[in-house]
């Protein structure tokens, strides 16, 4: 197992290099001009051209790529944001604190609300609980997040005045509406996946075996069915966590939260190259680590997968 993890960590080096080269090349072929967003709309074409030259944007691809890779991987410097004038790493970490709060809260909601809902639906297959749960789930995945967010604001912030409409200056209260709005789809999808997976597992022979042993419904459900049912859900949760750490642009925009998503989207829109490239690299690293974690959790939950990681000596 440790060998496997070590191998995966080593693999991260080419992955990071791959991400760096790919993002650099994409930014290179993407039209759009960082100079124009820096100088504002009243700059003329000649002034823009001068600024581009000064920023070194007119150098050939290879020169710029080399400079970028040298700076990133040899000097470990992600550069300074064109727009904010601050270090990309510091900027990203500052934004990450908000994103992390939202991601963790949302994941918690998703797991601790979605999973029980899915279990309830599966154990009452085709019953009322199932129908209600699945209806909510469908609502969850088909209601656009911004719509839900704005409705929540209208009710709880504008009409009732319980919570702030937007911003991050009210402590935890600032995060309640964003998290509810953001996790609704996650809860829904978690519930559906749990249900689907539970249904598969509940029909398995080993569940009948467990029942035939005289175990109580609860024990059968939680000791035998759930752990098996959760295996595919690990991917969902891992992927969801990875995505959420990349920021949730819609929610961050609506609630005026200066999270990673807005930082990155703004950077993409204004072609703030250092932020885009540095951000993608760091987020890619985080994502890869989470995916590695997912694979490790897999191995812990499912001995069959662990056996596959450890080589093919498996069966005796």
């Amino acid at each position, binding site marked *: 197992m440790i060998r496997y993890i070590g191998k995966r960590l080593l693999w991260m080096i080419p992955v990071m290099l791959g991400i760096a080269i790919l993002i650099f090349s994409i930014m290179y072929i993407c039209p759009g001009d960082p100079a124009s967003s820096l100088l504002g709309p009243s700059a003329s074409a000649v002034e823009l051209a001068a600024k581009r030259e000064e920023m070194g944007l007119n150098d050939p691809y290879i020169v710029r790529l080399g400079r970028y890779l040298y700076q990133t991987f040899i000097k470990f410097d992600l550069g300074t944001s064109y727009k904010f004038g601050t270090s990309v790493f510091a900027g990203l970490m500052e934004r990450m604190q908000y994103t992390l709060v939202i991601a963790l809260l949302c994941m918690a909601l998703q797991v601790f609300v979605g999973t029980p809902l899915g279990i309830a639906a599966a154990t009452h297959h085709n019953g009322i609980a199932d129908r209600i749960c699945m209806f909510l789930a469908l609502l969850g995945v088909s209601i656009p997040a911004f719509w839900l967010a704005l409705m929540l604001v209208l009710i709880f912030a504008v009409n009732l005045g319980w919570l702030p409409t937007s911003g991050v200056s*009210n402590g935890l209260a600032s995060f309640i509406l964003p998290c509810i709005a953001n996790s609704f789809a996650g809860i829904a999808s978690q519930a559906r996946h749990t249900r689907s997976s539970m249904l598969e597992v509940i029909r398995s022979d080993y569940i009948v075996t467990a029942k035939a042993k005289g175990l109580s419904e609860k024990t059968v459900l939680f000791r035998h069915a759930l752990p098996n049912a959760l295996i595919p859900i690990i991917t969902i949760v891992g992927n969801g966590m990875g995505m959420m750490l990349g920021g949730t642009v819609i929610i961050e925009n609506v609630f005026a939260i200066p999270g990673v998503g807005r930082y990155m989207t703004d950077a993409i829109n204004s072609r703030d190259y250092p932020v885009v490239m540095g951000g993608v690299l760091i987020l890619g690293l985080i994502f890869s680590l989470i995916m590695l974690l997912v694979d490790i959790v897999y191995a812990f939950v499912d001995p069959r997968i662990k056996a596959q990681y450890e080589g093919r000596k498996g069966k005796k």
Partner: protein
Amino acid sequence: MKKFLSLVLALVMALSMASFASAEQGKSVVVGLAGDPGNIGPFQGMGLGRIGILFTTYEMLMVKDGDTFRGCLMKELTKVDDLTYDVELYDYIVDQAGNKLTASDIKFCFETAKADGNLPKLSSVDSVEVLSDYVARFHFTALAAGDLESLLMECPIVTQAAYEASADKMATDPITTSPYQVVDYKTGSTITYKRNENYWQKDELTVTTSRHNVDEITFKIIPDPVQMVNALKAKEIDISAAIDGSYISDFMGVEGFDVTQIPDNTTKYLIFNFDSIPNAAERQAIAYAVDVDDIIAFAFDGIGYHAKTVGNNKYPDFVESWNDEEYYEYDDDKAQALFAEAGVTAGKTYRLIYNVADDNTRIATTIQAALGDYGINVTLIPYDNALFGTYKYDDKKSGEWDIMLDEGGSSNLLTNVWKLTLDSRDQTYGKTVGHVADEKLQSLIEAAINDNSPENMDAFHQYLKEQCYEYGLVSKVNNLAHTTVVTRAATCFRGQILPGACEY
């Protein structure tokens, strides 16, 4: 679970109580800002979000106060010769850290800003010479009409000592001469300013942009337009210039709220691509075919002004008589006749390129519908800001559009609006943005830029109108909605809120 919930609720309540409590002390105002200023350092460019906080954060040598130019840090301006001016500062300026501002700081600021290259106008400043503690001599390489003022207004001034003391070139914690000091900057969220009790200028000499009628100013960045409305309704913000036109009725004449309407200094106009529409009659026909009233109704909820030239009529060099001239008002007969003359028949297709934004999409759609009445198709090509900015000036892209919906404005002169797209010297390929290489047009605009006398202005305007290389459409109106905490809203000449100058 219940326990946890009640705990959370209690926490929430405690937190919200705390925030209300702190808001009670002193007079404070919260301004809703749609754009993120990002770097608030002095020598950054003029990205859209920055303009909103510029005058609260910094002072310049000169500002435009109402319709007149006034010295802010500058006490006297003396002309030495055509390209040389002496600037005399007040001799009692101190910044928020107590540093004295002297002529050497002026030299430092202009040189640093020019070297940073984010304020491209400064390229016409050749050098700044320190004559004495409070007198700096500016040497310019060239000065067109209005350039002197815009140059002196362009560069925010800070002391060299404070700038060098900052770790990040004042990107987050500028120390300036302004009456308000940044005390907290949560990047992307809020910027809070406290009034500087030791502001240097005497009240009777304070320019509008430096007034300080309130103790604390918070700019809150709210990118979503609906949330801006919600925040104002919930009175989390006191004033915003970014309330969508269709929501104005929620605040106008409503108890506790008020709305001030201020014409925007930008104008929407059409640029015709000379490569694909070389015939003046065809361009004129399109201009006649478009009904600006429709555009105002569809894109601006009925509130907007017809443009009378390429640019609006708020500039000092705008010639009054143009207001009464005919300027391609919607005329079906003329449009048909001109289309016939140009040989344009039904089935013709134009490609209209524009910068995507709600109002632009609607203007473009209105134009599309208007030309549709003549059997002419219009293909809309929307681009996001970055792509539009690139394609607009890209010679290679000129084969991909026929009409461009663009907008432009300037902080001082109409000629500066014209310069943006009509001066071929400012393009990298020696033609206007519309690919016109017309020597007469060029000589007329150069004349107007060098000397914006009504004659020169009119000559250029009339020629442009006759050729219809570009066609001014409409200027919008900004809605300043505010709670009655603000009794009179004040804006700078760029249409941005000046929270310190508002009355409470």
